[in-house]
Structure formats: structure tokens, C-alpha cells
């Protein structure tokens, strides 16, 4: 089902790395191939940022010139006037942090239950965790909407994060694997000293699983930042939009609509993307480890 290759995803594989240092020409050839691939993958970003800083009638001109000419940074002033970007950015941050905190804590709580205790029904319940991991979100789309509709919470941001309070299969699995790597005597010693089960979770399991918690947090923050479907379904009021939903509205108005303002669309795209790239560089280690050790798709 999964390719969890190391129980605690703490360390990079320490295996010796194949080395072609003895054959410098081959190494140079490999480096050139990788550099070309990098250039192809990076250049769309360069174009995006550059085009967002140009006047509208020059958007498509000189596509291979990496810097904007002529330079028109005023686009970034117009975009705040054309759309409530700041509101959307704040909404995205709040929803993202709440969603990520909720799923991280609840998943850790459940994972501790699976990792520490033996109880009747554990195998079956854990099978249900594994079983829902591949469950396509589309199957539950309609009934989930009906649930939120019946309690009058459509049109609010609650459906964007509330389901996260109950843990998520993937993170439960990740954290359980991590906690299984903690020697049992660590917990038993605390029990002898009179710690309650909640103490074990809060004071031992949580601090010890910090790397896995951060992986769960950054992945969920990213997932929430990417989410288009739920905001499309649940949000009507533009004041509640998150950035992806807002950017979709900007595209509909200024690219597809009868009012072409490409520079606005491009600047809004940059504003939607850059904070996440910044978060990526801060938490790079955890993103890359998370993917490498768990096989989670980005």
C-alpha cells in the first residue's frame, strides 16, 4: 500500500552515494543535462514574474528576455485595487493554519492510540485507516455538501477545515509509523512515575514526533493553499475567498471575460504563488523528506 521505507522519517538515507568523480567528462555531461532540465522547469516562473512587471501591450513580447522591459511595477498597485488580494491572502493564511493545526493534532492523537495501545478491534480500525487512504474525494463530494448544507454552514469557511478535526488517514499512518520507532520503555518509565495517558501523549509522544508533525503541518498547509474545489463549492461571498478561488475569479473577469487586463491576472498569480514558495524554502527539509520517505505526491 505504501512505500514508507524508514519508520522514523528523520534522516536522509545515509547510504554511500554513487560517485562519478573519477570520470570528470561524464560528470560534466550529467550536470549539463540537469542544468538544461532546471532551466526548462524554472523559466516559466521567470516569465511569469517578468511579464507581471510589464505593460499590457508588451505581455507577450520578448518571451526569452528574462527581465521586464519596459519595467512597470505599477501593476502590483493596480492589482490590489482591482481585487481584494490582501483579504484573500489573510483568509488563505487563517484557513491554512487552522486546517493544518487541526489535522496535525488530531492525527497525532489518533496515531498515538494506534501505536501505544493494544485493544479489541485495533486491526480492523487500522485497516479502515489504510482503506480510506486512496478514497477519491469526488465520491463523498455531494453528501458532504448535503451535511454542511443541512447545518447551515455552506457559505462559510468552516467546511474548508472542519473535517480535519478528525484526523486524516495519511498523517495518522505517518505518525503511527514514527511513534512505533519510539522505544516502549520511554513510555513505561513515565507510567511508573505516575504519568497519565494524556501526559504520555502530550509530554512524550508529541515532542518526540516533532519532525513528523512538521511534515504533516507543511503538507496540509500546502494542500489547503492549493484547494480550489471546496472554496468553489462552499464560498459565495468574495470577501471570504481564499487565494486560489480569488485568482479563479480574477481570471474569469480579466482573462476570459470581456475586460482583458493580463497584467492584473499575472500579478495576482505571482501573489498567489510567492508566499507558498517562501514557505517551501523555510520548510524545505521537511517537504523533501516527507516526499522522499513517504511517497506522498505533491
Amino acid at each position, binding site marked *: 500500500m505504501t512505500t514508507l521505507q524508514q519508520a522514523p522519517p528523520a534522516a536522509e538515507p545515509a547510504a554511500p552515494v554513487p560517485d562519478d568523480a573519477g570520470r570528470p567528462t561524464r560528470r560534466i555531461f550529467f550536470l549539463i543535462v540537469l542544468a538544461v532540465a532546471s532551466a526548462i522547469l524554472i523559466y516559466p516562473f521567470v516569465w511569469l514574474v517578468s511579464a507581471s512587471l510589464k505593460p499590457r501591450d508588451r505581455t507577450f513580447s520578448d518571451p526569452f528576455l528574462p527581465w521586464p522591459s519596459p519595467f512597470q511595477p505599477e501593476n502590483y498597485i493596480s492589482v490590489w485595487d482591482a481585487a481584494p488580494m490582501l483579504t484573500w491572502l489573510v483568509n488563505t493564511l487563517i484557513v491554512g493554519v487552522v486546517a493544518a493545526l487541526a489535522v496535525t493534532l488530531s492525527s497525532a492523537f489518533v496515531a498515538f492510540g494506534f501505536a501505544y495501545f493494544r*485493544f479489541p478491534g485495533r486491526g480492523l480500525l487500522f485497516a479502515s485507516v489504510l482503506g480510506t487512504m486512496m*478514497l477519491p474525494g469526488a465520491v463523498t463530494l455531494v453528501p458532504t455538501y448535503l451535511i454542511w448544507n443541512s447545518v447551515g454552514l455552506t457559505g462559510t469557511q468552516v467546511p474548508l477545515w472542519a473535517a480535519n*478535526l478528525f484526523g486524516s488517514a495519511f498523517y495518522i499512518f505517518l505518525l503511527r509509523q514514527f511513534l512505533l520507532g519510539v522505544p516502549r520503555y520511554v513510555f513505561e518509565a513515565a507510567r511508573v512515575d505516575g504519568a497519565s495517558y494524556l501526559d504520555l501523549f502530550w509530554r512524550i509522544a508529541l515532542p518526540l514526533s516533532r519532525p513528523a508533525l512538521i511534515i504533516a503541518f507543511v503538507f496540509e498547509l500546502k494542500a489547503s493553499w*492549493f484547494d480550489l474545489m471546496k472554496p468553489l463549492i462552499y464560498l459565495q461571498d468574495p470577501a471570504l475567498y481564499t487565494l486560489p478561488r480569488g485568482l479563479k475569479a480574477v481570471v474569469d473577469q480579466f482573462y476570459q471575460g470581456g475586460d482583458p487586463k493580463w497584467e492584473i491576472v*499575472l500579478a495576482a498569480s505571482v501573489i498567489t504563488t510567492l508566499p507558498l514558495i517562501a514557505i517551501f524554502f523555510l520548510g524545505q527539509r521537511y517537504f523533501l523528506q516527507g516526499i522522499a520517505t513517504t511517497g*506522498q505526491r*505533491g
Partner: protein
Amino acid sequence: MKAALSRPETRWAYVFVLPWVVGLLLFQLGPMIASLVLSFTDYDLISPPRFTGLDNYATMAQDPKVIRAIGNTLFYTVLHVPLSIGLALGLALILNRITGRAAGVFRTIFYLPSMTPHVAVGVLFLFLLNGQVGMVNQFLALFGVQGPQWTSDPDWMLAGIVLMSLWNLGSTTIILFAALRNVPRELSEAAMIDGASTWQRFRSITLPMIGGALFFVVIVNTIASLQMFDQVYTMYFGNTQAQNSSGDAALFYVIYLFQQAFQYLHMGYASALAWVLFLVIAIITVIQVKVGNRLVYYEAEERSR
């Protein structure tokens, strides 16, 4: 059993797993059963659901849009999965041959596109793939090639979407690279001493050793491709003008499901669409478990027991 249930330790165990059980019933199992039931009804949110038996499934089989959406989705999946994994494997193999800091830097660069929100990816490629003035066609023009109308010619729109999807091969590359680094180097060296060629070493040592990871990315990429929504919806749907001009050339299965549910409020029909998708994905997962257990050696299972 009874003794175990009455122990305080057991009661605490249930306290810890309770959130999962509630969430499972409320947001997974409950909705799944509800959508199965709804799929046999006609329900528009306003009047109560009306039981219609298998009508929705019969309609599906004759709905030209369903057939078009399935065709488009499969076409995309069949192109995207092998192309993206092939390219990612190539990059991972090369990454694995260089040493030191460079590999880490390239790995980061390859992952960057995967940090771009899907809506922004869709927007970016609307510009890049523009038939008249987009960068892709201007690049092709440098070689005297007249590029197609990627975003408006119905024969080329899916190809454009596949091209866009190849930009996001970073996480697949990282998974395969991590798997490659776990291949013991002695094996390859021993084979080299025995005179095995590069291809023989790849075929008989590397490929079997990374089989698990390779298998995993094939399955996960396939399931994700079958559920493609964000980028394509951003590019061609939601706005009536764009929707009319694109016709059904970019209609993907989940986009059609979404339209049926939330634009036309055909909740029963959308549920039927959802269940068919679920069955297809379930079958793929079963095949994965069956074939995977036979082919693949999982280190984790050995360790966690």
C-alpha cells in the same frame, strides 16, 4: 475479550481513536453510503429525493458528455502517466550519478513547480500555450515550427494539458531518487566487476530494487490523473464565455461531475457519476495490492512488526 474491554487502558485506547471513528462515520463511510443511495434517486436540493432505480446509471451510459469526459480523462491519463514517470525516472537516475551539494540543489529546483498552486499553474499555461503569442509557440518558431493552437483547437487542447502536466514531475522525481539512493552500491559494483553493461545493471539490479517506489508512483499518478480538476477547470471552465468556446474538448470526468452537482444541482446523477469513479479507482487499488504484493518487497513491513 470482556476483561480487556473493562480495563481502563482499553477505555483510554478508544478515547484516542475516537476522533478517527467519528470522522470515518461522518465524512467517509456515511457519505459513501449516502451517495450510493442518492445515486438511485433524482434529487435537486429543493424537492425531496425521488427514487428512480437505475435510471441515473442508464442515463450515464447514453450521455454523450459522459462518454466524451471518460475518453478525455483516459487519453490524458494514458499520456501523462508514462511520460511524466519516464522523464522523472530519467532525471532521478542522472541525479543519482552526481555527488554532493549539486544533487540537493537540483532536487529543490525540480520540486519548485510542484509548489505552485494549481490555479496559478492553469493561469500560467493559458499564457504560455497561447497559440498566437504564447512562449511555447514562439520557442517552436525559433526552429521554424508552426505550433498548434494549444488552447483553442479541440484537437490540441488535451495535448496542451499533458504538456502542462509534465511541468509537475518534481515529487515523482524525488520519490524515485530516494529509492535509488537506497539501492546498495555493492550490488552494482559487483555486477560491474563481472562485466555487466550499464543497461544490464539497470535492468537486473536497479529496476527490481526500486520496483516498489516505481509501482507506487504509477498508481498514485494514475489515480490523481483520473481526478484531474483544478488546472483544467481554471483554464477552460467556470466562465460561460470560456466554456462555450472550449466545448467538450477539455471536459474531464470530475469537472463534469462537479458541473452536474453544483451547477445543475443534479445531485442524484452526480452521485452515480461519483460511484462509477469510485469503483474504477477501487479496482485499480485492488490490482495494486494483488500485483504489488507479488512483485514488491516492502522494507517497512519487515521493520514495523
